[in-house]
């Protein structure tokens, strides 16, 4: 009998029955696994997040990250103490997430995998990567109206940047207690871009606009400058871009600086092959697996099952929609004044969510005109949208960070 009692105490059953909401979280983990594995929604992120959620919500395994109250003052403890008292997940969370280290490391890898060629060939379109940040700031205002604190509102709004590492980095600094729902919202909506963009496009554009053929316009009004030495431009560009950002929004530097460094060692080529491999494979892959698991580990029932989470999920969707619409209307306004017209889909891809947004835009364009291949054009505003949201994040961190 005593042995059976001991056995029961060893299991997580007793504690689980006391915190029945944990079941809901484990269920959410299953749903996310389904979305990641079967529906192929951003599997590289959603699968580790989902598994992290499941591990975190079984009590007794110390696989969940402490909530804000429990974690108060824990940054003063050494990693050894944290591991001894709260397990390896909390140790890794404090070492890699709380410090804000992983998102810049992932940006290093993203940079090494990004090609600025399409943007450099269509610089004019880069402005729409700026316009499509409007969703971020609109939702910040709305969130404040709904009762979120300013830093929380900033972290919520950044979902509209449609860029995972940027959203996570901003959330870590402005509102670490909301990291889980913000990451989930950001990656889920990025995965849902094939649904969201067509939805917004349907309500904001006319058939005629969607038929604007970028190549035909280019043929009618050819660009005056050709790039004679693309390799040189591609090498100098990330350096120059870093300097501009460093000068104007230094708070974005941990993100943009590493993004551009990653891009530089890619463009330099074989001389820095070892660095490129480290950035785009070793560091990127390891950071991705840990980031996913740890974000999942923050999503315990107590932290996640709050009314705020619902607002974040809704607010994030609006941020996406407004950003897309913002990009589209910016194109429309541009077209009022310019003779060389732009397809409004190029505005929609200013959202970022690289490269899926561009692919979706391309497909929509092809549906309306089978000869209208605008992928390369869409990639321009698409990539500039990444820079745009990192800049927006820098602004939010500057004014709302402590």
């Amino acid at each position: 009998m005593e042995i059976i009692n001991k056995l029961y105490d060893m299991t997580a059953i007793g504690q689980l029955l006391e915190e029945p909401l944990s079941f809901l979280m484990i269920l959410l983990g299953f749903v996310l696994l389904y979305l990641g594995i079967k529906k192929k929604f951003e599997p590289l992120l959603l699968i580790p997040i989902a598994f992290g959620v499941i591990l975190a919500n079984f009590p007794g395994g110390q696989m969940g990250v402490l909530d804000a109250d429990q974690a108060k003052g824990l940054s003063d403890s050494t990693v050894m103490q944290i591991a001894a008292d709260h397990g390896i997940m909390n140790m890794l969370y404090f070492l890699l997430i709380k410090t804000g280290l992983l998102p810049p490391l992932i940006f290093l890898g993203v940079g090494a995998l990004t090609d600025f060629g399409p943007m450099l060939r269509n610089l004019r379109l880069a402005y729409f990567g700026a316009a499509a940040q409007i969703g971020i700031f609109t939702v910040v205002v709305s969130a404040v109206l709904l009762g979120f604190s300013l830093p929380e509102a900033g972290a919520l709004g950044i979902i509209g940047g449609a860029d995972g590492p940027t959203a996570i980095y901003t959330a870590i600094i402005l509102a670490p207690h909301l990291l889980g729902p913000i990451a989930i919202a950001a990656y889920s909506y990025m995965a849902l871009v094939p649904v969201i963009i067509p939805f917004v496009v349907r309500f904001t554009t006319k058939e005629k606009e969607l038929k604007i053929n970028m190549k035909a316009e280019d043929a009618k009004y050819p660009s005056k400058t050709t790039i004679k030495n693309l390799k040189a431009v591609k090498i100098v560009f990330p350096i120059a871009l870093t300097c501009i950002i460093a000068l104007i929004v230094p708070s974005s530097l941990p993100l943009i600086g590493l993004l551009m460094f990653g891009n530089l060692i890619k463009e330099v080529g074989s001389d820095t092959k070892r660095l490129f491999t480290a950035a785009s494979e070793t560091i990127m892959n390891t950071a991705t697996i840990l980031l996913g698991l740890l974000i999942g580990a923050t999503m315990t029932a107590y932290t996640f099952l709050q009314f705020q989470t619902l607002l974040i999920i809704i607010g994030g969707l609006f941020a996406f929609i407004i950003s897309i619409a913002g990009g589209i209307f910016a194109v429309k306004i541009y077209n009022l004044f310019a003779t060389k017209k732009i397809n409004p889909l190029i505005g929609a891809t200013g959202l970022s969510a690289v490269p899926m947004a561009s692919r979706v835009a391309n497909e929509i364009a092809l549906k309306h005109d089978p000869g209208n291949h605008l992928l390369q054009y869409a990639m321009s505003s698409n990539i500039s949208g990444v820079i745009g949201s990192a800049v927006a994040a820098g602004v939010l961190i500057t004014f709302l960070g402590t």
Partner: protein
Amino acid sequence: MDENSVIEALSLLAIGMVTVFVILGLIVLLAKTLIRVINRYFPESAIAHTQSALYADDEVVTVISAAVDQLTGGRGEIVEINEIN
């Protein structure tokens, strides 16, 4: 909800959008300058080279792919072909 916060959020909306536009404007400006400067002072045989190389590469890749395809019954994939410097 506190009024000051709303005002600050609204001013953030202004500051933020101004900043992203200013920065992307500067980036565009700088990129154009870069292209012009490099076109003038370091034009090299770049366009011809990179572009033709690109096509040549594509051709070569096609040929190799076909060979690999034949060998592997369509199941093989060329992971990487490194160019000699």
